[in-house]
């Protein structure tokens, strides 16, 4: 995905980059299926949220971690801080770049994944499980309805990568 986006950014038109562009449907389906989980909701800034009763867990998607590269540092808020839908709550550092992480929903932070301070690479190796970032008590659960489901997010990723 990076190769095709870079090739497009560089406006290279070679046989090699064209073959990187033309990813077979079977490959793209299996690639995206393996990186998008059912039952989660997704923001167009590539964060996921899993709502479980009174608490929602938030992290960044496999698509995001793949494009960011190796995560070496994570900045997270403290428990008790408010988050706003679409607003930044922290950042990750990879390849000398700091990238904002935005909350898909509004609420109050109730727990932070402290393992990420010692092992930030969990975001790369396990973006939907061990690499979770914060848990939030939602203040407006109806915000979840404005987010994408798995199929919609898969299509969103495919379209975004195809256009770059």
């Amino acid at each position: 995905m990076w190769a095709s986006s870079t090739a497009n950014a560089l406006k290279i038109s070679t046989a090699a980059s064209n073959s990187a562009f033309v990813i077979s449907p079977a490959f793209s389906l299996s690639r995206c299926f393996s990186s998008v989980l059912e039952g989660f909701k997704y923001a167009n800034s590539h964060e996921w949220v899993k709502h479980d009763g009174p608490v929602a867990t938030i992290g960044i998607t496999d698509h995001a971690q793949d494009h960011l590269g190796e995560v070496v540092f994570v900045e997270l808020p403290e428990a008790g801080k408010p988050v706003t839908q679409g607003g930044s709550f922290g950042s990750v550092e990879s390849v000398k770049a700091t990238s904002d992480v935005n909350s898909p929903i509004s609420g109050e932070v109730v727990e932070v994944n402290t393992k990420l301070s010692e092992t930030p690479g969990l975001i790369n190796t396990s973006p939907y499980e061990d690499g979770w970032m914060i848990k939030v008590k939602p203040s407006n659960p109806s915000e979840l309805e404005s987010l994408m489901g798995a199929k919609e997010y898969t299509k969103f990723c495919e379209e975004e990568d195809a256009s770059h």
Partner: protein
Amino acid sequence: MAVPQTRSMGLPLINLLRLKGAPILQQLHLEERLLRTSYDNWCIINDGTTKRTVVMGVSGKAEELLEIDSVLRDEIPVIRRFTGGTVIVDQGTIFVTFVCNKDAFPDLQSYPQPIMSWSSLIYKKVFQGIGDFSLRENDYVLGNRKFGGNAQSITKTRWVHHTSFLWDYEVSNMGYLKLPKRAPDYRQARDHLDFICRMKDHIPRSNFIERTIDAVGSHFVLRSVDPEASQSPLSSKFEPSSRLLKREELEEAIFNSRSRGACAASASQAS
């Protein structure tokens, strides 16, 4: 209500701000503020900075990156900036920064590597016919020697890409930096002096700046602005995160590093 003009002739507009000798902390505060509060695209060129300064990234650990005893002895300021990377800067450093909206280039994905590749197109043009320029991992190199280091900050709708160019450097300055634990493969464990090169050996200073402006002009429509135009309005509440580290923080880093070293030595003896 007037709608701000964002494109002209199909190219995005960019405000070109030229500074000379601006302190690096002031430059970083400006960049961060423009990233977070402006809606325009900006190209900032700062031709040298007045005071020799070490700049570390957001996660940089002084005890791993710096010869802190020497830094403290010689009273070298140490800044923690809002992006990544480590660099020592002075009057021989030329800074070029882009602060852009994501939709300035809809075909460009706002992730580190695509932005890095995009920026290298500009400098490829600058060095055409002058030197063997290429992008190696996150560095600009001539041959296999680094002359420009890059770092970025990316938000939901905008990004900063800034470069410190080594137009010239003092050999003694490199003594303040340790060999980093994380280094690009192409460095191949070379020490600083075998790894970097001076741009002045390839291109005159003013020529580099003018060629850079020309190259930027092939991607944007340039609009020169006065430094006053970039000043923060009095009503602004934005607080930048880049800051000068206190002496106590650097002393604490030395203490912690020595404590960890002593613990590791006793643990190894006990086993």
